[in-house]
């Protein structure tokens, strides 16, 4: 994926795209908070430059940011992402139960996040071999 982009530019490009979509969302929303889109563009530019500079460094983080990680660095990245997903699932569960207990009407975004992480886990199991026949 994204192999048509030079490795050092892949993560900055994805970050730039996400930041611009986020900024566009604020612009499309309009209203008195439209200026947040400008702040989002500035923050995105800073993040893209930081990511690019990080990607040139001779560190594990630099290798991951520069899309040139070897097997150990890839494993470190995968474990970090797995930890992030675990934390997201636990946080969304806590949010869901707190919202239900507090009779709040904002419980469903937590349920969506929990369902998506659960589905992602099951999809990963089926994609990466747990369903292989004996």
């Amino acid at each position, binding site marked *: 994926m994204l192999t048509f982009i030079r490795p050092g530019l892949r993560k900055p490009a994805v970050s730039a795209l996400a930041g611009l979509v986020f900024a566009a969302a604020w612009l499309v929303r309009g209203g008195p908070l439209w200026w947040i889109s400008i702040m989002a563009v500035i923050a995105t530019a800073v993040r893209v430059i930081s990511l690019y500079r990080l990607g040139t460094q*001779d*560190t*594990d983080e630099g*290798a991951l940011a520069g899309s040139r*990680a*070897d*097997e*150990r*660095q890839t494993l470190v990245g995968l474990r970090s992402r797995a930890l992030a997903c675990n934390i997201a699932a636990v946080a969304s569960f806590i949010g869901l139960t707190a919202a239900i207990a507090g009779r709040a009407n904002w419980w469903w975004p937590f349920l969506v996040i929990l369902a998506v992480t659960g589905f992602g886990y099951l999809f990963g199991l089926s994609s990466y071999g747990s369903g292989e026949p004996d």
Partner: protein
Amino acid sequence: MRNRVREQRTQQGLSQAELASALGVSRQTVISIESGRYLPSLPLAFAIARFFGMTVDKMFDPDQEADSC
């Protein structure tokens, strides 16, 4: 698991960066392998052993604790 990567590398007068470049991995990974913090995959273990002209079982000894540094 103890390994002889550092011993072999210093014997051949190679830096960690030179070995990393020859194996196609990062310098940090060579450091982690030498200190026993990271066990390489089978293909990388074979590549290391082949690079030093040894067999994998001579290069990696599962019966001994890794050197700590």
